[in-house]
């Protein structure tokens, strides 16, 4: 996983810079999302990995599905990946592309796991305080996890605020065991 993402980074960066230059980010993102969704399928990967399927055929396959959305530049991008046999990187490229997009728009996606369903007011309060904390716009991604017992866990990429009862119990355990 880690190595894939390292390999995917320059491609994502290039695609994003190109899209930004041509004011075309949304379309690029759509195409990458669909392509990434396709390559995440095991059967598709097997097909694309077949040595009999050359780069042009592989891009044709994408063109059949994406249709007109796959303009010349985007199909060139896929052609290049297919040429290097790196189509399996597409899911990672999509993740990085989205991250770059969010960074450019100063948006941060924040995962919030709570023990119970968060009300609208609670969510707004969270967003407000996270926005001051992170100095950027916050997009909440809420989910419910009864295992937390109470409270919530807030997570963005690898930064975590653990305010759950389970987390506190864990701390208590560490303290008692010494």
């Amino acid at each position, binding site marked *: *996983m*880690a190595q894939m*993402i*390292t390999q995917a*980074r320059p491609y994502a960066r290039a695609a994003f810079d190109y899209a930004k230059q041509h004011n075309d980010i949304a379309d690029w993102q759509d195409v990458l999302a669909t392509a990434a969704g396709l390559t995440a399928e095991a059967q598709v990967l097997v097909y694309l990995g077949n040595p009999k399927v050359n780069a042009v055929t592989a891009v044709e396959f994408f063109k059949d599905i994406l249709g007109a959305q796959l303009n010349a530049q985007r199909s060139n991008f896929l052609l290049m990946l297919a040429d290097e046999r790196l189509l399996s990187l597409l899911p990672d490229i999509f993740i990085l592309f989205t991250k770059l997009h969010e960074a450019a728009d100063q948006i941060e996606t924040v995962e919030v796991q709570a023990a119970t369903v968060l009300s609208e007011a609670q969510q707004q309060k969270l967003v407000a305080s996270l926005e001051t904390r992170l100095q950027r716009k916050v997009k909440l991604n809420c989910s419910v996890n009864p295992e937390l017992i109470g*409270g919530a866990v807030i*997570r963005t*990429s*690898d*930064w*975590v*605020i*653990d*305010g759950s009862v389970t*987390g*506190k119990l864990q*701390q*208590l355990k560490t*303290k*008692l065991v*010494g």
Partner: protein
Amino acid sequence: MALNSAEISQIIKDRIETFNAVAEERSEGTVVSVKDGIVTIYGLADVMYGEMLEFSTGEFGLALNLERDTVGAVVLGPDTGIVEGQTVKCTGRVMEVPVGPELLGRVVDALGNPIDGKGPIDAKQSRPIETIAPGVIAREPVTQPLQTGLKIVDSLVPVGRGQRELIIGDRQTGKTTVAIDAIINQRDKGVKCIYVAIGQKASSVANVVQKLKDHDALDNTIIVCANASDSAALQFIAPYVGCSMGEYFRDNGEDALIVYDDLTKQAWAYRQISLLLRRPPGREAYPGDVFYIHSRLLERAARVNSAYVEKLTEGRVKGKTGSLTALPIIETQAGDISAFVPTNVISITDGQMFMETSLFNAGIRPAINAGSSVSRVGGAAQTKIIKKLGGQMLRLALAQYRELEAFAQFASDLDEATRKQLEHGQRCTELLKQPPYSPISVAEMALGLFAIDKGFVEDIEVEKVCSFIQGLESYARDKYKAFLDAVTANPVLNDDVEKQLHDMVTEYKNTQTW
């Protein structure tokens, strides 16, 4: 250690009282792969080099490789139970171990946990395992002797407090024994000892512990061990852990002695970790920084001045210097001292004792080669009496003896002067023989050297010299203890002392058998 239930509940109450449940903020990552004690972690963007990581199994790790997307870490302990996808937490701390006098007499693992079954250690302080060595301003020259109690060491390669003296030799040449003798000799001298066993058999460590216990030296000693069965990470950090424990004494104005047994194994462990972390291999497949792992460790052995001690203890200890003397051990393969790690450590230390298999097999024990062993600073720290009686005379006699040794087979054809020199050399060699685990005092040592120096043994057969000297030492111990103690306390050779030594040797020679 017995704890009653009331005490236990009191401890728990105290802990609950001080427990402050706040939302925890931390950095998290995900385990990508685990193999051979090395974990690759995705995430942990703000991890620091050498930071402790906490795995969800409760084990701890050290972050050693910081790459763009991943972090390479070693697990300090077993890696069973750590699986792909688990979360890893940053702790924001570097590794620390408990230090202090409470550890004396205990056997601990490389994390400072007791493993001798004597219950928990109530250490009041802890220290990071990696610290920067004291600078130039904080240091003081090495001027006080550290008596090892071995004749050959104290007379030919004297060790001073704060010195780093390497013990190097093949397997089974008595390297550990020399180090253990040095530790045993500190039992009544107030020098705290730390014995760090790295990559050794648990049975060997148990033997060492037993030997120290038998000679009443365990109460003065901390034993840190990372056995051959422990992970490479633990074997790698064990010397730093021991060093931190020794530094506590040094920085509190006391004297300490630390033995690293042995640094070859530590270098092997580090090589294993580095190769598994995919760092580029260099000479003998060691990584590029293998010199630094030993130099930064041995630089921490030092003698520090009283101003430094006063500053670190915030004025509690005044007017006392502190020292940490290091006796690192290196095991060579078939006497090859030009291999990578031996040359490195020879160049770092202030001298070395060469142990040789041939000497060992010839019955010359401790099997230290007097010709190639040196002490670069110890001479300044040698006791006056030994320096006067032994130093020059012995070194010269042994050097001449080695020159002539080849002719020893033709003894009958040699002229009188050569034969005499040869025999004198043999007698000196006999004098320096010493059984294991029986270090002797400065005065006893002076007595033997005096006997040789003044020609008392010239008429004694070479084979009998060793038992003559040992007999003389024990005779003096029984009969003239007060005098010996006085000389040991004030080791100066004046006319009175010389006369008394002369009388003792004459009396022994006239009245005793050997």
